């Protein structure tokens, strides 16, 4: 039995554990990518990251804003679409397939598409604004419009994922509580709020937990659309760590930032796990 798992275990050690250990080691040393001195400096790199105003003043707020805005909007859109698709109507299958399409688009491709849509000179969004007699907007030179576009892209990409999971959950809900409530004269909103939503709670919590953790690590769409700009104002955690390590070539600071991020997400994950356990317990 052990022999069977040995290859997978060896791959895990070589490509996951060892790089993490090398990264962790680098975070305690002076280790630039172009000249790895490797002199031990203790917690100096951690102090520099935690004391960097960009890190605590821009990167962490952006990361948490992205996590909560993107997951909330994705969840609400996914829930809405799932409720609409959980009915019998003509073209139901076509509608379900169409809703799932964004799941098949690689995030980088979607991000390039969105970047062009919001291009200030050639983009379709400004073309529409101009046709309506409005002033075109340079979308990607302000923090909030740039961040808004990034969040919008993420929501577009992930809404189908929420939809498919919630739809699957809706189709497995027992019919009896709904029937009983209808007999008692409950309308659509009380039915949804007091019956459907509580029954969906465990699935929603799983979706939220997975997506929040995933959103913390977002890199591809932010890098493609803004690269953290303008002037670092849309940097999120993974862009910050990447820039430290591979743009500024400070592998030591990049590693320290990564480990700080790992610590943060472990705390967030633990809180979410507690909330998930509670939600499951309550709905039993």
């Amino acid at each position, binding site marked *: 039995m052990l022999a069977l798992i040995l290859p997978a275990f060896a791959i895990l050690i070589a490509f996951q554990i060892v790089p993490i250990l090398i990264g962790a080691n680098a975070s305690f040393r002076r280790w630039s990518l172009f000249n790895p001195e490797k002199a031990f400096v203790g917690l100096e790199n951690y102090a520099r990251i935690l004391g960097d105003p960009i890190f605590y003043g821009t990167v962490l707020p952006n990361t948490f804003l992205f996590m909560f805005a993107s997951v909330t909007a994705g969840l609400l859109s996914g829930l809405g679409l799932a409720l609409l698709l959980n009915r019998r109507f003509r073209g139901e299958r076509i509608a379900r397939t169409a809703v799932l399409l964004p799941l098949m688009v690689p995030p980088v491709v979607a991000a390039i598409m969105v970047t062009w849509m919001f291009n200030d000179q050639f983009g379709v969004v400004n073309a529409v604004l101009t046709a309506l007699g409005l002033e075109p907007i*340079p979308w990607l*030179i302000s923090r909030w419009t740039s961040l808004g576009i990034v969040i919008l892209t993420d929501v577009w990409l992930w809404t189908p994922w929420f939809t498919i999971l919630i739809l699957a959950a809706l189709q497995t809900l027992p019919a009896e509580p709904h029937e009983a409530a209808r007999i008692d004269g409950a309308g659509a909103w009380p039915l949804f709020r007091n019956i459907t939503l509580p029954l969906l709670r465990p699935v929603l919590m799983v979706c939220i937990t997975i997506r929040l953790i995933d959103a913390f690590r977002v890199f591809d769409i932010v890098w493609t659309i803004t690269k953290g700009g303008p002037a670092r*104002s849309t940097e999120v955690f993974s862009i910050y760590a990447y820039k430290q390590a591979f743009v500024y070539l400070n592998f030591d600071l990049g590693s320290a930032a990564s480990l700080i991020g790992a610590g943060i997400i472990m705390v967030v994950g633990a809180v979410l796990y507690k909330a998930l356990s509670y939600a499951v317990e309550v709905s039993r």
Partner: protein
Amino acid sequence: MNRRRFLGLTGGTLAVGLGAPAIGRAQSMELKIGYMPHPIHENSIKWMKLWAAEHKVNLTPVPTSYEVYVEKMTANLTSRGGQYDVIWHNDDWGQLWGRYLEPVDDVPAIKKMNRFLYEPPFVWEGKDTGVAFVETIGTFFYRTDLLKESEFPKNWDDFVKTSQRLQKDGKVKWGFAGGMKYPHGWFTFFWSVWANGGDLMMPLHERRNEELAKAGWKATIDSPEAVQAVEFWWDNIKTHKIAPPGQPGYSRDDANAIFMAGDAAITMADTTLYGKFNDPKQSKVAGKISVASFPMGPRAKFKSIAWRDAWAWAIPIHVDSAKKKAAKDLLNWINLNEEAQVDLWKATGGFPPNEEVQKKLIQSDPVFRKFRAATVESEKIIHGAYYFPRWPEFFATGIDHMVKAVTGPRDGIKAALAEGSKKMSEIAARA
């Protein structure tokens, strides 16, 4: 399949798999070229392929985007990776990679090049580490159907008035479009700082690290010249409206697209983009462009100024000696081959580094003479970058603060640049 047969097959496959590269090596040598997709690189690779075919060498070009080139190549060099045998080496990476590159002083063609291109960018511990394949020089491109040569603005005031006139007459959407965000700040911020008598560090126009250290690694993007240059861009975008409002987010590709679409009268770019701008398949302004010197700022200290640098090919030090020799022969051949050097100029607008070829072009080619007059014959020639290892972080920090300044309130420009200067000085001092 029984166990013995399975083991036999697996062993056989492994033996063939492991042995195949050795067999391949015995048959012909492979040279893997790390390059950026760009007309200059593609032209150089075209000639490399010709040499490779004659010498029975397999040439494998491996493209890498400019946006991730430094980090990818640095990781490859420091890990002694086998992905590349020859790499593109930009002038401002000299101090990062010097120790990982093969000295190339023994390539005879280097003696035919201008030493200014090499010192300090491509010299590491007294040895040359790259063989230049093109000179990279920034210049102004303008539309000849909109502006006569004599009408091209000589100073910033004219620059604004000329742009406004063309826009007002409905001839063009924007007077100017240029790259601004990191790493494209040369095409707006940097040229204007230099044209206004400023520089990024003290002492002015100094690039030797010893001298920069003596001056305390002092960044100067908060100097009056630099502040005025950023104010110039703020006004151009927000007050005069001669440049697109999205320009602070533009890469050079964004700006090039606007110019080639015919939406800007003037842009600033490397001469190496002349071929692209002049290609009717890609550009609506093909056949209607010329070049000019920088319009000078009100604090200019010289009549004209330009930067002059080179792109080089380099050989990672860990490449085996047979490949090193082949790579040096190849690079020497390209630079001594007059046909290849002239083709580089004709196809792309890049200046061939071989000065003997340049002398012949001066005699025979009026367009080349015009390009030289607009660039390397300027009163003051400087290097376009600095050559200490922290340059990428220094450069990015400078541009980020300039973008912050130009996208913020006008009265906040000085403070944003002072903050940037302080950070840049700290970064440079860590060199």
